[in-house]
Structures are given as structure tokens and as C-alpha cells.
């Protein structure tokens, strides 16, 4: 076996790394403010990654780099969705960033580096690889938020994100070191079997678990590790917010799966209780605080917190259905968030951020089609049938009911009900209030096509959720090799 063929499963990551280097250099030699060449190269890179990921897919689970890296169905699916999310993010945000002079080669390179970090996280099968991917992702994101150097609010957001992120990384590493101390290994599967065979110091194990969960909770942004979310979402330029709020959530989901399910499944009784506390607090605080917001980005930040709480309900069910529905929920959340932030980006112009609730007043009179797309997205976030948001919530709740978490399900439904208020308020503003300005909305053809696909996709996936649902269920089942 040649050396290259042993890397077979990591071709996508290697290709991406090569291309980032190429793009960094190529960017130096392309003139012009619009960066068209660089931008197209990035999109081609994403397409290439997708093709490679599809082409190198093999049934079963492959390990390489001495069991540090894993390639399974779940990682392939999540990577493909991450490419898609990044690509859509770039289409949505290009004109926004161009108008603000932020569409630079560094930005594009950082986006691709963050993607590489996500891919490493998704495919990690060792705590070290996990941490490596996480830091690559996080450092890229800190830099991206800080990219708008002359904006006080953006730099403040980057600073907060960095400091709290460092604290969370510290908690995570501390937890991992304790797990190492208890089991003597950092390998995901070895940790699992070590715990199953019994460890001398159970307290150390549980202690480690708590710190690991705290680290995870920070990445997901669930209460009480959520405080960075509203400030960063609000402070960062909308395009950066969109990046933070979408694809990394898929990586975070993989992170949860790798650590809690693959490595620490034997401790499920312990972590499912913790997750339940975090989930209830997140759904409560996220949904209730969102009501008081007047800034749309801040509102989406709290909505994210609530959605992540919901996702945890699926995870803590501890069954294949639960994990599958949580993955489905993560994917649906990413699609909805892309649409939601995309809408803000579309409405923004040079020197004007359409991120206040009042900016959406009377949108129906200005652009009925955009208003309708936003209506679909809001309905989906609120969980109104027949949009896909309903099925995502339904699947998660169904799994939780089957796992016997009835009180949790009742709370989840109650908080979703409260949440419906602020989503529907936007619909009300769009359809029943008079517009504050009658300025025309200029849209690039690519982003306006994308928002239509995005909005209608939410509806079509809601009517025909079967395929995506079974993809999620099968990939979780095949990758984690859980008993039924």
C-alpha cells in the first residue's frame, strides 16, 4: 500500500489545505476590489471538496493516522452539509461585505481555515484531534469577528468571544485531562471500553465529565455558557454572525456525538441529567429573552440558544432515534438560520444594517416575495406545520417521549409556544404594519435565487421530510454502531 492510499479518507481535508495555501498566494496576484477570482476559487474549492467527499466515501468506518481520524457516514454527511452552508453563506454575504470593504483574501482564507477546523472536529476520534479541530475553528472565528478593525462593537465582540472561548477551552482541556487520568487513554473508543471495564476512580471520571460538558455547552451556546452568544451575534458584522451561527453548529453536534456518545456512552445516566438541566434553562431563557429584543440579530442569538436547548433534548434521549432527530434538528436549524441571516443581508445596503425589527415593517408592500420567504422561515423556526421546523421539533419530541422524558417534553412544548410569539411578531410586522421606508431592495440575482430556494426548501422539506430524516437516522446508526 502506497503512502497516499493510506490517506484516502482524508483527501478532502488535504485538498482543502492545499487550496487555502493556493488561494492565499493567488490572492496576492489578483488585482481589483471585488476579488472575483479569489471568490470563484473558493467556491470551486468547496465544490471540489464535495466531489472528493462523495468520491472517497466507503461503507463502514475507516480509521487513519493511528486512530486519530475517522471517516464514517455521519462525518461525510456533516462535511457535505458544512460545504453547502459555507458556500451559501458566501453567496449571501458577498455584496454585503464588498459594500463594507471586508471582502478580502484574508477573510476568505479564514473562512476556509475555519471549515478545515470543522472537518477535523467532525472526523476526530481522539481527544487531541477534537481539540485541534476546535481550536482551528475557534481561532479562525475570533479573527473573522475582529476583521472589521475600525468597528468598536465588532472588536469588543471579538475580545469577549476570545476571552470566554479561552476559558471554555481551559475547562474542556481540564476535563479531558481528568478523563485521561481516569482511563489512561485519549482515544474515543478506548475511553469507552475502559469505562465499561470499570475504572478505579469513578469520581474523577464524573468530575472530568462535568468539565467536558461545560466546554461542549460553550460551543453550542447553551445556558449558562451562552453569555457570549448575544454579544457576538450582535457585535459581529452580519455576514460573520451568519458564519458563526450556521456551519459550526454542525461541527458542534459532531463534537457532542464523538465525546458524549462514542466515548462516554457508559456515563449516559450522568450526562443526560446534566443536558436536561442545560436544555430546560436554554429553552426557557432563550425564548423568554428573545421577546424583549428589538435587534433582529440579537433575537436570532437568543433563538439559537433556545434551538440548541431543543437539540440537546434529542441527544439526551440516548437512543438512535434521539441522535438521528438531533442531527436532523441541527441540519434544519442551519438551513433556517442561513435563510434568516440571509434575509438581513439582502435587506442591508451600504451604510445601512437591516438588523432592527422595525426594518421589517411592511415588507409585504415593498417586496411580497421576500416577505413570503421570511414568513416561511419564521414559521419554520416557530415550528408551524407544514414547514420543516415542525418536523424537526416533532422528531425530537417523539424521541424524548419514547425515552420517557415526559416532563421535559411538556416544558419544551411550552417554551416553543412562548417562542412562537417573537417569530410571529415578525410576520405581523411584515404583513400588517406600514413600512417605514419605501426604498427599493436591490438584490443580486444569485442571492435572490438562493433566498427563494432557501425559503421554498424549508417548505418542501417540511412536506417531504422523509429523505433527510432517513439520511440522518442511517448515518447516526451506521457511524456510532449502537445497538437498536
Amino acid at each position, binding site marked *: 500500500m502506497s503512502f497516499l492510499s493510506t490517506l484516502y479518507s482524508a483527501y478532502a481535508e488535504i485538498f482543502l489545505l492545499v487550496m487555502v495555501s493556493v488561494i492565499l498566494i493567488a490572492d496576492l496576484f489578483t488585482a481589483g476590489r471585488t476579488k472575483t477570482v479569489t471568490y470563484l476559487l473558493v467556491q470551486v474549492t468547496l465544490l471540489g471538496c464535495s466531489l472528493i467527499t462523495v468520491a472517497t466515501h466507503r461503507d463502514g468506518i475507516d480509521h487513519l493516522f493511528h486512530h486519530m481520524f475517522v471517516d464514517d457516514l455521519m462525518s461525510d454527511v456533516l462535511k457535505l452539509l458544512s460545504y453547502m452552508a459555507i458556500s451559501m453563506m458566501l453567496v449571501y454575504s458577498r455584496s454585503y461585505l464588498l459594500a463594507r470593504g471586508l471582502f478580502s483574501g484574508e477573510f476568505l482564507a479564514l473562512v476556509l481555515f475555519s471549515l478545515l477546523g470543522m472537518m477535523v472536529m467532525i472526523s476526530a476520534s481522539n481527544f487531541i484531534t477534537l481539540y485541534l479541530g476546535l481550536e482551528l475553528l475557534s481561532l479562525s472565528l475570533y479573527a473573522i469577528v475582529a476583521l472589521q478593525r475600525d468597528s468598536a462593537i465588532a472588536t469588543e465582540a471579538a475580545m469577549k468571544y476570545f*476571552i470566554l472561548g479561552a476559558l471554555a477551552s481551559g475547562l474542556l482541556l481540564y476535563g479531558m485531562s481528568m478523563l485521561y487520568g481516569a482511563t489512561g487513554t485519549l482515544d474515543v473508543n478506548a475511553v469507552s471500553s475502559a469505562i465499561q471495564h470499570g475504572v478505579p476512580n469513578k469520581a474523577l471520571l464524573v468530575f472530568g465529565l462535568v468539565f467536558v460538558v*461545560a466546554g461542549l455547552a460553550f460551543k453550542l451556546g447553551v445556558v*449558562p455558557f451562552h453569555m457570549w452568544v448575544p*454579544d457576538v451575534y450582535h457585535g459581529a458584522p452580519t455576514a460573520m454572525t451568519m458564519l458563526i451561527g450556521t456551519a459550526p453548529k454542525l461541527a458542534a453536534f459532531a463534537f457532542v456525538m464523538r465525546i458524549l456518545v462514542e466515548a462516554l456512552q457508559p456515563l449516559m445516566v450522568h450526562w443526560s441529567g446534566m443536558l436536561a438541566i442545560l436544555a430546560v434553562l436554554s429553552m426557557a431563557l432563550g425564548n423568554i429573552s428573545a421577546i424583549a429584543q428589538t435587534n433582529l440579530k440579537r433575537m436570532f442569538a437568543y433563538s439559537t440558544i433556545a434551538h440548541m436547548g431543543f437539540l440537546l433534548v434529542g441527544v439526551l434521549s440516548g437512543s438512535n432515534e434521539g441522535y438521528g432527530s438531533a442531527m436532523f434538528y441541527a441540519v434544519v436549524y442551519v438551513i433556517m438560520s442561513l435563510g434568516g441571516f440571509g434575509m438581513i443581508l439582502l435587506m442591508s445596503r451600504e451604510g445601512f444594517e437591516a438588523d432592527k425589527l422595525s426594518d421589517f415593517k411592511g415588507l409585504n408592500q415593498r417586496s411580497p416575495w421576500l416577505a413570503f420567504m421570511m414568513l416561511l422561515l419564521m414559521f419554520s423556526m416557530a415550528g408551524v406545520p407544514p414547514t420543516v421546523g415542525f418536523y424537526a421539533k416533532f422528531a425530537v419530541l417523539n424521541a424524548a417521549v419514547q425515552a420517557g422524558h415526559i416532563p421535559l417534553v411538556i416544558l419544551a412544548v411550552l417554551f416553543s409556544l412562548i417562542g412562537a*410569539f417573537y417569530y410571529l411578531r415578525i410576520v405581523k410586522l411584515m404583513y400588517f404594519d406600514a413600512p417605514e421606508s419605501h426604498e427599493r431592495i436591490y438584490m443580486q440575482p444569485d442571492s435572490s435565487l438562493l433566498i427563494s430556494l432557501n425559503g421554498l426548501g424549508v417548505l418542501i422539506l417540511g412536506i417531504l421530510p422523509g429523505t433527510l430524516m432517513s439520511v440522518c437516522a442511517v448515518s447516526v446508526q451506521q457511524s456510532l454502531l449502537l445497538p437498536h
Partner: protein
Amino acid sequence: MSHMQNLYLLVPLAPLLGAIAAGLFGNILGRKWSHRITIALVAVSFAASVAIFKDVMAGHQFNGTVYKWMTSGDASFEVGFLIDRLTVMMMLVVTFVSLMVHIYTIGYMEEDPGYQRFFSYISLFTFSMLMLVMANNFMQLFFGWEAVGLVSYLLIGFWFKRETAIYANLKAFLVNRVGDFGFLLGIALILMVFGTLDYAAVFANAGRYVNDFAPIPGVSWNLITAICILLFIGAMGKSAQFPLHVWLPDSMEGPTPISALIHAATMVTAGIFMVARMSPLFELSETALSFVMIIGAITALFMGFLGIIQNDIKRVVAYSTLSQLGYMTVALGASAYSVAVFHLMTHAFFKALLFLAAGSVIMAMHHDQDIRNMGGLRKYMPITWITSLIGSLALIGTPFFSGFYSKDSIIEAVEYSHLPVSGIAYAAVLAGVFVTAFYSFRMYFLVFHGEERFGKDHHDHQGDHDDEEVASDHHHGLAPGQKPHESPWVVTVPLILLAVPSVLIGLVAIEPMLFGNYFLDAIYVGENHRVLDEMHEEFHGAIAMALHSFISLPFMFALAGVVSAWYFYMKKPSIPAAIKQRFTGVYTLLDNKYYFDIFNDWFFAGGARGTSRFLWKFGDVHLIDGVMVNGTAKLVGRFSGVLRKAQTGYVYHYAFAMITGVFVLLTVRTWFE
């Protein structure tokens, strides 16, 4: 057989197509084409019914599913047809009367702006009624049942700018809801007990459920009795039986053609048809049969009394319809289902005739409906006169006329019935004969004979109508000196065509329908209820029956009724006035229709409004909106404001929250260890 199935489908679908054409495209088609299309399609339906009749008489019956609508659990809901001799007879009656009414409408509604709408409605009604009678399961029966109710509602309120019409159609709708509620409960009980809504399956298993059940602990009911009484409550609403009869007289606010079609010939007899169709169920419960009989007897007699004092020509006919429906119901109670259906058929012809003749008179009188303003119309409207006379003779049961055969058979069947209440019922139906003859000929004499009272300045007693707009005023009457004239041929031809069966159908049909095993297994009569067999022994042919009747009690009663009507209203018009003076109490009671309307308005309508007001003011506005909806919303909003303050913006507060979170998780973990 598949071409027969297509024919079955054609029967209801042709009028539906007509309804859609005239209803949705009436403005494009115009008046002429709207009536041409609807009439042609109803004629197609009638022709198809005749063909099916021949086929059924040749021994081909059909019972099958046409379309499966949905499946829920084990229950499936289907559209299906049951074509047997009972169905095909109803199909013939419905399509024939409907065709006559369609043609008649050309003349009657000539000047009405809602011409196309009217044709659309009556075609839609024909479709609904056919779906009802052709059903082979309870789901479709219920569909047809509600659909005819809907069209009835729409047609009573056809002149929707008239306050009284709106009141009447709302009343009809609400009263029918009471009946339909019972009906629906009955169907639900059937579905619960039998697990199917298919007629054949239900009838086949009915015998197994004669046992008791206890819906509420401590109260024990007989299952079949409960089902039958609930179903019959539906029939009471639809067929206007006491005490759910109150809507039918008011329904006369609708145009006369629909009074003939819906509120005399077809829809109101749906209840009778339904009970006859359900004979295998009703036969299992003597309690239900007694209930049916007593309700019918009350309706037959007491509604007849009300006919005596009415002055509106249509209302007289309406009360007569109520009373005749009572007769049919009594026959059902006596297990003489075929007699009830027989009377249903003859009644459909002669009552449609009477209504259409009344409509012809109303047209001639320029929409004055008060019989006190008529008189002597015989020489102006010869065709209307002779056909009305035929209708009235048939109604009172003159020998050889169709009504005689069916009504006498009912009286006889009650006489032979062994039910405990049959004695009272017999007295009621016998007395009813006199009452029927009296009010029928009172109307006949006042309209067609005697002094000409029209064209005079007689509008004082209804002066309020003169203030109304001309467009909504249908009571304007003849101008002084103006003479009435006979109606156009589109009106008189249906009268003549209906007069023929009114005379002959009884003579022709009594033997096969009652004693000749016409219905085969469509109607089932239990071992100990075979009154028809006893009657058969006395029966020696239709002619003999008529000849024999001249010395019978019902004939005497009828004759007495006619003679007294003639004497009171032709000879000595002072007598009724004197009676009215002497028996003011009775007259007031009748004039207020036994105070049913007042009681209903006060108790049910007022009570419902009061309860609703309480629930709205206190329950909804105060409790639900105030405390629960707005209260929780306010609470959440306030809480949200508090939580918002927690987001201070200081990074050390955020870090503190994280560390606290770790501590909380640790504490919880160690707590549970």
C-alpha cells in the same frame, strides 16, 4: 353490469353538473341557457331512473362501493350505492317532481333577479336528495342528509333581503341541528357497536345487539332502542315531527317551487324514507316503534288543527304537510313501512300539485297570499282550479284517488297494530281525517268559490308591507279593478302532469306495493308485526276497496269535513266568527301555534344567548383572555425584561456565569452520587 353502474352514477351527477353550470357560469350562460341546461340534465336523470327502474324490476339489484373516501383505523368511509326497489321508487319520485318543479320555475321565477341561482340550488338539491336515497352506508346517508339541509337553508333564505326569510332559514337550520345531533349520535353509536357503517353489514348483525348496555353506570339502555330513537330524532328534525316541527311553517318564506319540491314532496320525507330503510333495526325495538307512533299521532292531529285557522294559502298547505308527515310516521310505528312509503309517494304527487297550484294562485294574485282576499277564482283560472280540486280530493282521501289508498291503508294498519299506544294513535288519525277535509276545503272554497274579494282596498290589515321597498315586497296584491288570469303553460303543464299520478298512482300501485311483495327484502318486518298480512286478508282488489269504503268510518269523517267547511264558509260565514268569539282561549292557543315558538325563543334561544353571554363576558373575556392569555403574556414579558438585564455586557460577569454553571453541574452530579 358496468354500464348499469355508469347509469347509477349518471342519476345524481347530471343534476350536480347542472347545478355547477348554472351556479358558477350562470352569468355567462344567461337565463335561457341556465334553465335549458338544468332542465335537460334533470330530465336525463329522470330518464336514467326510469331505465334503472326497469332493470331493477327485471331482478337486478346492486349494492356496492363506488369510491373509497378514507380509512381510519378499522372503519372505512365509502361512497356506495344500494339500488333496490325502495331506492328506485324514491329516485323516480324525486327526479319526476324535481323535473316538474324545474319547468314550473321558469314561469314562477320569471321576474326574479336570482333566476340562475335558483336553478342552481334546485339542481343541487336534486343531486343531494339522490345521494341520500341511493346511499348504501350511513356516511353517505349523512352527507345527503346534511346537503339537503344546506340547500333547504339556502332556499328558504333565497330572498335574503327579507328579514322574515333570514329568520326562517336560521330557524330551520337551528332546529334541524337539534335533530341532526341525535342522528349523528345514532350513527356514531352504530359505528361504535358494529364497527362499520355499511347498511348490509349492520342489518346482518343487528340481531346480536338486542342486549342492554350501560353508557353511564347505573343507567341501562337497550342498544338497539337507543340507536333507533337517536336516528329517529334525526328524522323528527328533517321530517318536521312534533316538537321539532316549528321550522316547516316558517320555511314557506322561500319561493313556492321549493316549498313543493323540498318542503312537501322530497326532503321532508327523507326521515320517513330513512326509517323505512332502517326497518331491520326498528323491528327489533318495540319501544322505539311506540315512540315513533306516538310522535306521529301527535303531529298528525295537532298540526292539522293549526291548518284550520291559517289565512296564508301556503301556510295552510304547510300545516297539511306536517299533518300528513305525521300520518306516515304513524304508519312506520305500526311497522307498516311499505304503507308509509306508499303514502310518501302519493303525497309527493298531490302535495307538490297543491303547492304548485297555490303558487299559480299567488302569481295570479300578484303575490298576495291571503286567502281572505281571494274567492271566485274558478272562472279565471280553470286549469289551476281543476287541478287544485283534484289535489284536495286526493289529500282528504276521496275513494279512487291516490291519497285514499295510502291514507286508508295507514288507518287500517294502525287499527291492526298491537303496540300499546296504537289505540290513541288510531283515534288521532281518524280525527285527523275530519280535520284534513275541513281545512283543505275551507281553503278550496275560500280561494275558488264565493264572492270575489280581490282588487279591493283591503291592505289595511297588512299595512306594514306597503312601506317596504318594491323589490323586496312580495305581498302587493292586485290593484283595484284588475282581474286575475290563468298562468302560462310552463306553470299549468306541470300541474296537469302532477294531477295524473295524484289521481291514478294509488289505484295502480297499491296492490304490488302493499300486498304484492314489491319491496322484496328492501323492507323487513318482524314476525309479530305483520299487520299487512292481516290487512291482506281483507283486501279484494283496489276497486273493491274503494267501493267498500263508502260505508267506512274515514269516509264519513272526510265527508263531514267537506260539508262543514262548505256550510261554514260558503253558507254561513258568520259561524266561524261566532266560534272564534266564543272560544277565544282555544283560538289564541291555535293562533300562537301552541306557544312553541314563544317558548323556544324564550327558553332555547334566550337561554343559549344568556349562557353564551356569560361565557363570553366572564369565561372568555375575563378568564381566558384576561387572566390566562394576556396574564401569562404579561408575566412572560415582564420576566423577559428582567432576564434582559442579566446580559450586562461585562465579560467578567459572563465568565462568572460559566463558572457558576460548572459548579451547579458539579453539585448536582455529586448530589446524585
